[in-house]
């Protein structure tokens, strides 16, 4: 009984150990890429939300409101099918790429996940930006810093301290949301690997259990790292 389970997790053609290992790496790859892209979306949308241009503000508000009120799985499906297809057609029509051009499905999925998390990221970053006292920015202007310098030297270091808890939570939910990609059935990330292993061997409890434990491992390590980062960024404020 116990030995069969060890066989199941073996390396190579018979066992599923190597599949789970690469699935684990794939989940990390998807999560990290999606998170980095979400950070970019977040900063752009925050800048738009706090800008004086009403059109940019309206766009950003629509983005965050709509995306945050729709289920993640629906958004991922819409973006994965719609946006990737539309972008391909547009690029072909613009003559930028050859006919028959297709996005790498990996990036389409990453883009979809990042599009969803970006909306939540915007709210975190916006709140953090507003927590920086106005006086700090006024004094920075008074000593003659350029707006780029103000952002890099004054705003960013101070807002990150407020943003880290929210950003940490968001990282945890991105790793978990990456499981939704399994529904697309195109990537061997953790859940899809577990799904295939369970279906092939009919050992549902064992293989979904393994999947759950590996996700838990990501969470455990992340929580430890995040606690260290929070302490580090708050070191001047105790």
């Amino acid at each position: 009984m116990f030995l069969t389970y060890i066989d199941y997790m073996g390396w190579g053609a018979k066992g599923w150990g190597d599949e789970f290992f690469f699935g684990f790496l794939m989940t990390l790859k998807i999560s990290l890429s999606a998170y980095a892209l979400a950070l970019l979306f977040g900063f752009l949308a925050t800048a738009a939300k706090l800008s004086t241009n009403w059109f940019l503000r309206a766009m950003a508000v629509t983005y965050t409101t709509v995306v945050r009120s729709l289920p993640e799985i629906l958004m991922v499906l819409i973006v994965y099918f719609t946006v990737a297809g539309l972008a391909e057609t547009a690029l072909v029509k613009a003559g930028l790429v050859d006919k028959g051009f297709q996005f790498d499905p990996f990036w389409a999925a990453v883009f979809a996940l990042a599009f969803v998390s970006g909306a939540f990221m915007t709210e975190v970053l916006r709140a953090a930006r507003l927590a920086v006292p106005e006086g700090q920015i006024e004094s920075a202007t008074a000593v003659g810093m350029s707006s780029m310098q103000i952002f890099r030297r004054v705003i960013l270091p101070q807002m990150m301290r407020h943003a880290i808890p929210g950003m940490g939570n968001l990282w945890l939910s991105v790793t978990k949301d990456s499981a939704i990609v399994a529904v697309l059935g195109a990537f061997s990330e953790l859940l899809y690997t577990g799904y295939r292993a369970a279906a092939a061997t009919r050992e549902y409890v064992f293989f979904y259990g393994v999947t759950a434990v590996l996700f838990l491992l990501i969470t455990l390590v992340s929580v430890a790292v995040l606690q260290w980062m929070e302490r580090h960024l708050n070191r001047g404020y105790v």
Partner: protein
Amino acid sequence: MIQFFNNVVSWLPELLAATPLTLTLTLVAGICGLVFGTLLALARLSDSLVLSMPAGIFMFVMRGTPLLVQLYLIYYGLGQILPGTWVRHSFLWPYLRDGFSYAVIALSMNQAAYNGEVLRGAIRSVPKGQIEASVAIGMTSFQVLTRVRLPLAFRDCLPVLTSDIIILLKSTALVSTITVLELMGTARMIQRESLQIYEPLIACGLVYFAVVIVLTNIMRPIESRLTRFRRGNT
């Protein structure tokens, strides 16, 4: 373009017919989640290690793994654990035949873990003086719990509980993967049958958006009524 919007609108009736199931799932899992979440929070805060440790582990595991994995584990795994064809011949068969009960179980457990964590913080932050005062006028510890600690805790964390309900509503979309035909499941079924890729998804998004807006607006007056004292006009 007009054709596209006509297609989107044409799917709305069918999707609206599936909305009650989404709302039922949210309501049932929301109530179960709140009840079990309260018990979890109390167990987590208890002095006995036998109670607090399992509760802590349960909450950590449920919050640390994707809901989709939990759904699959329960949906596919339960049949494997229960011996042979026992389920099929037992009184539970009418309930365990389709995905709905599995969906309710998984959603409730997940929601209980999240609510439990929120309530734990809220119960712990009830001012000590309140509890001392209740003890002083001779309440039993059960009375202190039901008349003072829990009401204050619930009122305190109501905004978070509300947003948890919205998150739960959105999570119900995941149960479409275990054959439950709620909003999302219906949209995907229409997708397969009509071979239209975008229109059913867009229509589905419209319905979800409307439901979330309505739900938020139902909760807002409740919240502001329960927190009247903060505006100083009690």
